[in-house]
């Protein structure tokens, strides 16, 4: 079953349910790469607050999604990592390097807005 992708302005929002399978996550990666182009999205938010566990497999997959959408011109932000899940991830040794994270959907959207704004100002 495909994981649904919601479009909100220039942002795509995905809410990952309980325990997606390997196939569903790969399909999501494919679908996002596709839709970022179709809708000219600049950001992707992946809400993982429903995940009971973030194991090394799930974490690797999210990193893959972030890298793929980046190659298509959109930033990915993972939101909603629960405190207990974050604690267990740290013990396990997972760092989510190079994946941006925010507290929740609202913070994630704000972060994306700042990034867009930043590309406009910052840089050199």
């Amino acid at each position, binding site marked *: 079953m495909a994981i649904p992708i919601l479009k909100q302005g220039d942002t795509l929002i995905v809410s990952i349910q309980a325990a997606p399978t390997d196939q569903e996550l790969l399909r999501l990666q494919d679908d996002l790469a596709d839709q970022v182009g179709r809708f000219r999205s600049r950001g992707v938010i992946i809400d993982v607050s429903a995940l009971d566990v973030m194991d*090394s497999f799930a974490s690797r997959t999210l990193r893959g999604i972030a890298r793929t959408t980046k190659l298509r011109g959109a930033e990915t932000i993972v939101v909603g990592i629960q405190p207990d899940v974050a*604690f267990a991830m740290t013990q396990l040794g997972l760092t989510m390097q190079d994946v941006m994270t925010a507290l929740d959907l609202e913070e994630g959207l704000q972060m994306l807005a700042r990034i867009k704004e930043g590309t406009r100002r910052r840089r050199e």
Partner: protein
Amino acid sequence: MSSDIQIPIDRESDIVTARQKGRELAAEAGFAGSDLTVIATAISEVARNIVTYAVRGEIRVTRIQLSGKSGIQVVASDHGPGIPDIALALRDGYSTGKSLGLGLPGAKRLMDEFEIASKAGQGTTVTMRKWTR
């Protein structure tokens, strides 16, 4: 109230079943809060290794008592190819597959006790324990 559960592992969805049932038994055994997630995460890692490297096996979760302390024991066993070099497999970042190589060393960090027994061509048994504090 059960004190022992056994979950056959032979497809991806069994990984989720194992960690959910393991979490329930851990709660019954007196664990709470982040300990439950820590135990579920460790189960998830060893269960995924069964699916990935041994195709099928089982996870057994048992409540244990020892000289006044109580806790939980997780045994993940399979008759897969086995692990030729256990010390190497326990190294952070070592993977013969496509993954991060954090499963075994990470599960070891998550639990209080951790042992691997494996014989090439015969299979692998990972035994992990955690005690309530």
